[in-house]
């Protein structure tokens, strides 16, 4: 069985048994993958300490207030997975697409889990 088939099966099993809730999207780089907004020290290092998120946000088309909030909910003491999800949901479809494409420009892969 191909790896892709196994991945799809695994995802279906995940949906079936775990129940897939609301989400943002998966970002992956250097064989590490995370949902944007997840509370994780390695994600914090990858996105925040590197300065990547700040740069990425500065290039997106979303309103400045939302850029600041998104940075705050991902990278500061106010970190909140639920608020990141909520803010992502609040973006227009165009802003969501643009946000993902800027991530790609910075070498991130979107919605791929390296197994």
């Amino acid at each position, binding site marked *: 069985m191909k790896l892709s088939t*196994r991945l799809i099966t695994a995802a279906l099993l995940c949906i079936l048994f775990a129940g897939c809730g*609301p989400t943002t999207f998966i970002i992956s780089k250097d064989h590490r993958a995370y949902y944007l907004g997840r509370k994780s020290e390695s994600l914090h290092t990858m996105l925040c300490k590197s300065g990547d998120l700040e740069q990425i946000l500065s290039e997106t088309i979303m309103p400045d207030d939302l850029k600041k*909030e998104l940075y705050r909910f991902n990278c500061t003491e106010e970190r909140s997975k639920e608020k990141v999800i909520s*803010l992502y949901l*609040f973006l227009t479809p165009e802003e969501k697409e643009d946000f993902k494409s800027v991530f790609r420009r910075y070498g991130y892969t979107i919605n791929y*889990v390296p*197994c």
Partner: protein
Amino acid sequence: MKLLSYIICLTILLVLQPAGLSRAATEQNTPAPDFELIDLAGKTHRLADYRGKVVIINFWASWCPECLEEMPSLDRLYTRFSKQDLIVLGITSDRKKDPVLEVLKKIPVTYPLLLETGGGVFIRKYIVIGLPTTVLVDRRGFIAERIVGRTDFGSASFSKKIQELLHTGRTP
């Protein structure tokens, strides 16, 4: 080997799995956060002004098909119970009037549609993590229930729920 790759992939997916809808359980019977938003006609609506009534807050967006699907049944519910102190407020995440007016042409609802331009109510006060989201607020101004996903507001069970809230202040 195959089993191992299944286990690895499944583990990764489960670890990546975001939080579910646990918020709904923790906020029940807590005061509904107040807000002040304007509707399409420019009229200001404050949640606190509706204390003593049952309020349905419906979060939606013009780009969300499930939101649009439930709007007609929500409007019928509003028409049926508005004389018995039921208020319906539709809060859209569309930051401009135009897409909302386009929706109104196709789905001419009669309850007020409020514009949420900054995200403060949507993101900070109610932390909406799925669309549509419906929040039922009782006469005391407390959250009775949060429903994430499309709802059939015309169903017998939902009507019963609203009647209970209107008459006893509790959901069945």
